[in-house]
């Protein structure tokens, strides 16, 4: 928990490198984060990593805040901020540049074709993420039912998901999940 300069430097280096390797989003970088934080650098135990990941999953905000938690665990608030900025910095600069090009050539033929090629890839990846997350979370039939209820409510209605989260938290609390 000591925010030494060396620790902050290490956090920054790790996540700057990881930023551009996270092809397909933050969750794609989880295995590499785990390898570094647990196996290589010994920042935390396997169990601690799993707990931090669970907290980041259920906390509000982008999934990438698991990086904030890792940094926080290693070096307090400064660690959380440094790790997050390092993880997002390079990819954000790239996104800024690409977004500009994307918009400028809105009606260019090559851009329309790349777009037509990328959209289905994106849709397929999101569906794959849904499957992977469901497989990880649905440890029993009650958990599976919770997933399906949330999916149906989210698709067919505009009911706020927090109501279903409250139900899920209660089901977990009384030991059904």
């Amino acid at each position: 928990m000591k925010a030494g300069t060396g620790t902050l430097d290490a956090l920054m280096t790790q996540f700057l490198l990881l930023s551009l390797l996270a092809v397909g989003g933050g969750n794609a970088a989880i295995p590499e984060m785990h390898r570094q934080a647990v196996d290589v650098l010994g920042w935390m135990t396997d169990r601690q990593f799993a707990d931090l990941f669970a907290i980041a999953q259920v906390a509000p905000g982008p999934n990438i805040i698991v990086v904030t938690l890792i940094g926080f665990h290693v070096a307090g608030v400064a660690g959380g901020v440094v790790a997050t900025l390092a993880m997002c910095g390079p990819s954000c600069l790239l996104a800024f540049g690409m977004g500009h090009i994307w918009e400028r050539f809105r009606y260019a033929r090559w851009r329309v074709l790349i777009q037509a090629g990328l959209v289905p890839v994106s849709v397929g990846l999101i569906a794959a993420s849904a499957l992977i997350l469901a497989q990880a979370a649905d440890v029993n039939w009650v958990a599976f039912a919770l997933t399906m209820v949330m999916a149906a409510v989210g698709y067919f209605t505009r009911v706020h998901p927090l109501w279903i989260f409250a139900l899920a938290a209660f089901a977990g609390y009384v030991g059904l999940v």
Partner: protein
Amino acid sequence: MTEPPSGEGDAINPRPSLPELLFALSYVSLTGFGGVLPFARRMIVEQKRWMSAEEFNEVFSLCQFLPGPNIVNFSVVYGARLGGPLGAVLGLIAILAPAMVVVMILGGIYMRFGDVAALQRILSGLAAAAAGLIVAVSAKMAVPLFRRGFGPAPIVAVAIFIAVGILRVPLLWALLVATPAGIALAWRWRT
């Protein structure tokens, strides 16, 4: 709940001002449980109607393709479209900062009370529900794609779902194959 299944609206409102964007994304950051994409889509496409479902797919697919956290990239790209570099920085701050504050508070609580079993059980229930949200949003994103009828797009979507979701092919490999293939198929189909 008399409105049609969400996300299909074509009526688009004027683009938001930067303070409106800052407020909306901060709200998404604080309320987006279990992955922010469904909440960002809900806010921008369904409630505010700042983007059509197709436009959202278009910007998000770019951010999905680029490395880094998708929703953070999305906030940067969308912010930049509305307000240049300032908009990009505001988008980044709005989507990240509120969530960072909350998660570090939770992290502090966890370091103190992480051994409590009831807390672990509640987390299990929340994780199951969070997965359902992603199931719903993937269905919503797939509808505009499949509605256009026959073509290479649904084939590519299903193929990458099988490769990454079921066969667990490393993402980099899947992208290196599927992206050129998808573009090539789109090119062949249109000419």
